[in-house]
């Protein structure tokens, strides 16, 4: 240990930390293993099991628990093979994994208690692990020495020098995260013999050089005894912020049928992130085309070690008609509303003995919320069902346009409401089609530009707050902003002298009827463009944005709420109206000083906060609400942030509180209303609108009280209508006075 001497006290403390952690890890392991007995583990579950064992091994290493290290090492090795699909999840394997988990727990406990176990404790399980690796995984000599290792060259192989080509192109983000390529190079050098080639071709002339941008790329050739994983680990922190390909140059004998069909195994670039964490999770369209998937041939357990596994594998899921689930969701939604209505009424009446009633209401509210969560969970499904359709699409489209395309998917297990999943298929299909057709260059062009001839499209999903984030990334030509702008001018979408920022120009591809491909193809066609995609996504309450680097590629990011049914919102009051702001968008709220608010020449108003000027949006003006507080310094400004980081300040009377609301569609009976993403029904039966921050930001601020179409009509002349008002030019007030 390079960290100096550790005293007894400190050691005891560190040790305690370790065992606390072990407890957590073992619990996690246990849970995962018991799931394994019921269903085939996905890559996420396998990774999690692997990590648990790996962490225990790592910690044990630090404290010199040799036995624990030895056992977890074997355990980990088997899990690694399983993770890479080199061993199938047969009953025998699962039994062994479960038994090994038990042994591991005992070994940890023994280490903690500083007990000695019998020498052969767990030996039978260890043997079984080794046998499985030999028989199923084709890993010979797993138990014996290392003499065969070099020949077999399993992916976790430790020895035998191999040569790797590593191509590494940092993105600007890499620098923004304060990573430093030089340090990576230095670290690579420690792994073996390193040859470095630096590509300066991306370097612009000095005067157009952005100091914070990334222009250089490197190619390394490394002769090392380390594995691909070890190399990938060097790039651990930067794998998302660079283009990285680690290619093994010398062909290793391949074991297992799975890869035999792949013609260019040795050439096939492997993403660093694949190798490191989630190889099983990614799907390669190319590979899938070439090689049959490992089918689920179940290997019966020949020598059934006594264990709990056999017999307990039962079916634990049932199929339910979606209509029934929907009905349940609706009824629970109504229940939520009814309950809050009742609670409000009871609170208003403030009856004697109210305390007990209030407690009852509170309890009921909790239960109902729980019920609602349960019901929502029924509808959640992994996006896998949509992602799984994409490899086929990629094959078809790429064949049609004659481009070689590789599709990588991650996060298929990310769950999202079923309705959302259904609505994802079209936009994704469209975007991937676009990416292949317009985004990626053909093989020739790619070669000329020094790229791999096979284009890559990445499809990734993950959770971010209450949203699911889906990214479609290609390593194609990127958006040529000048061309895009010219096209937009030509089409009359923007004025020729318009000054647009890069983001704004990129955003033009979402303009209706936009298509910049030189040739109209029958793949993407013309007319049905990204505008349709954006509309689809907006209809889901989501957003879509694009980032692109010319020559490097394009990334579309979809941010879509996990469920279309409920929203965590902040209720605000404006006059007599209530509005719901999505909680995720709220940065803060504050009451500005009078001096912080300034009117701009164009009619807009801004509030200054911490040196930033934020545009103010007066809800009472936008919605024509009478009786609201008109000066921000008497009311409140809620600072909201959009997905792209844009900010607006919304002027309200007061905050009422945080609330989960049931989202009701406005579109069922009405066309989309800009600025409003939906509505909810309050406890008193009134409707409160849910505001769409993204759209609010783009709305013109109106400072007068008139409605846009508000023609002033001829005065009411009839005396038969007792309620007819004097026409005072304040039409919106009428809805309020009933």
């Amino acid at each position, binding site marked *: 240990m390079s960290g100096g001497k550790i005293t007894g006290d400190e050691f005891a403390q560190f040790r305690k930390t370790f065992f606390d952690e072990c407890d957590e890890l073992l619990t996690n392991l246990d849970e995962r293993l018991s799931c394994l007995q019921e269903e085939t583990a996905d890559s996420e579950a396998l990774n999690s099991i692997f990590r648990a064992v790996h962490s225990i091994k790592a910690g044990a290493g630090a404290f010199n628990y040799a036995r624990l290290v030895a056992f977890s090492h074997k355990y980990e090795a088997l899990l690694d093979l399983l993770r890479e699909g080199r061993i199938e999840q047969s009953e025998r394997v699962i039994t062994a994994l479960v038994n090994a988990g038990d042994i591991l727990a005992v070994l940890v406990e023994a280490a903690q208690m500083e007990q000695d176990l019998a020498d052969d404790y767990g030996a039978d399980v260890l043997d079984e692990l080794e046998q499985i690796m030999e028989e199923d995984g084709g890993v010979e000599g797993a138990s014996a020495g290392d003499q065969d290792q070099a020949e077999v060259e399993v992916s976790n192989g430790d020895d035998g020098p191999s040569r790797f080509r590593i191509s590494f192109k940092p993105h600007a983000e890499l620098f923004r995260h304060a990573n430093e390529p030089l340090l990576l190079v230095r670290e690579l050098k420690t792994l073996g013999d390193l040859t470095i080639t630096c590509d300066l071709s991306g370097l612009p002339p000095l005067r157009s050089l952005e100091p914070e941008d990334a222009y250089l790329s490197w190619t390394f050739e490394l002769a090392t005894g380390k594995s691909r994983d070890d190399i990938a680990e060097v790039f651990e922190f930067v794998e998302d912020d660079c283009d990285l390909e680690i290619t093994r140059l010398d062909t290793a004998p391949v074991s297992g049928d799975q890869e035999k069909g792949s013609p260019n195994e040795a050439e096939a670039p492997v993403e660093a992130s694949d190798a490191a964490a989630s190889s099983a999770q990614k799907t390669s369209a190319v590979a899938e085309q070439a090689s049959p998937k490992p089918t689920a041939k179940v290997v019966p357990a020949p020598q059934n070690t006594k264990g709990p596994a056999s017999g307990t594998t039962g079916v634990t899921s049932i199929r339910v008609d979606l209509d029934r689930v929907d009905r349940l969701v*609706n009824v629970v*939604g*109504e229940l939520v*509303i009814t309950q809050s209505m009742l609670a409000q009424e009871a609170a208003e009446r403030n009856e004697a003995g109210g305390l007990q009633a209030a407690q009852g209401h509170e309890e009921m509210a909790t239960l109902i919320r729980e019920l609602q969560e349960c019901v929502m969970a029924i509808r959640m499904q992994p996006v896998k069902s949509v992602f799984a359709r994409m490899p086929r699409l990629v094959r078809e489209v790429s064949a049609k346009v004659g481009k070689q395309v590789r599709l990588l998917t991650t996060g298929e297990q990310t769950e999202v409401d079923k309705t959302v999943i259904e609505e994802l298929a079209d936009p994704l299909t469209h975007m991937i089609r676009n990416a292949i057709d317009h985004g990626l260059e053909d093989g020739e062009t790619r070669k000329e530009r020094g790229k791999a001839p096979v284009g890559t499209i990445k499809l990734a999903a993950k959770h971010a707050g209450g949203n699911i984030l889906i990214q479609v990334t290609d390593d194609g030509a990127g958006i040529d902003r000048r061309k895009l702008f010219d096209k937009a001018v030509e089409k009359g979408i923007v004025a020729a002298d318009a000054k647009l920022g890069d983001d704004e120009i990129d955003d033009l591809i*979402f303009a*209706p009827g936009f298509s910049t491909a030189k040739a109209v193809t029958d793949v993407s066609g013309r007319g049905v463009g990204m*505008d349709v995609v*954006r*509309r689809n996504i*907006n209809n889901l309450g989501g957003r879509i944005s694009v980032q692109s680097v010319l020559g490097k590629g394009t990334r579309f990011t979809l941010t879509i709420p996990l469920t279309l049914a409920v929203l965590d919102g902040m209720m605000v009051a404006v006059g007599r*109206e209530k509005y719901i702001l999505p909680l995720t968008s709220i940065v803060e709220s504050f009451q500005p000083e009078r001096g912080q608010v300034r009117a701009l020449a164009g009619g807009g108003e801004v509030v200054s906060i911490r040196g930033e000027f934020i545009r103010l949006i007066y809800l009472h003006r*936008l*919605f*024509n*609400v009478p009786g609201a507080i008109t000066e921000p310094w008497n009311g409140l400004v809620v600072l909201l942030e959009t997905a792209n980081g844009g900010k607006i300040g919304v002027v309200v009377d007061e905050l009422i509180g945080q609330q989960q609301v049931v989202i*009701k*569609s*406005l579109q*069922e*009976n*009405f*066309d*989309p*209303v*800009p*600025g*409003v993403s939906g*509505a909810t*029904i309050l406890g008193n*039966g*009134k*409707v*409160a*609108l849910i505001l769409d921050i993204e*759209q609010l930001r*783009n*709305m013109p601020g109106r400072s007068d009280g008139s*409605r*846009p*179409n*508000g*023609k002033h*009509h*001829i*005065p*009411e002349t*009839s005396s*038969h*209508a007792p*309620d*007819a*008002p004097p*026409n005072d030019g304040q*039409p*919106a007030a*009428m*809805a*309020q*006075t*009933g």
Partner: protein
Amino acid sequence: MDDHIDGIDQETDASEAAETNQPNTRQFISFRVGDEEFAIDIMAVREIKGWTETAPLPNQPDYNLGVMNLRGTIVPTFDLRRRFGMGGTVATPYHVVIIASVKERTIGLLVDAVSDILTVHEDQIRPVPDMERIAAAEFLSGIITVEENMVVLLSLEKLFQRGDVTASGDMAA
């Protein structure tokens, strides 16, 4: 108001049994806006209810009163008086909202009172003459005379064409 509705229900039942099956007759619900009588096809009417408050929407034509809660469904509601350019209605709980279906959408129409159910032979429906009295004559589909009174037939489809009901301006882009 309740009387109104009860009366209608009974009459509806009676008239359905007696008259709907006759060839070439149609049924309408007539209602009053100011001192004008209007009618719409009974088949479009889903229900009639008392006025409840609406939540106003941004950037809408002034006759759009916003949305109301109809047992959990969000229903956009329109002030017919203002739609006809006769000024606005100060709605009270005694005002009536006719819930109607237009092109598979459910909308609410704020009127002063519901009057009657009319069973009319098609021959009795007269075309609309050029009329300057009512501002937007294009959504009138005919006129019927009922006991000396003139009832104007409305075409809801024309009254609330999609473009008309649509939010103005495409902010979302």
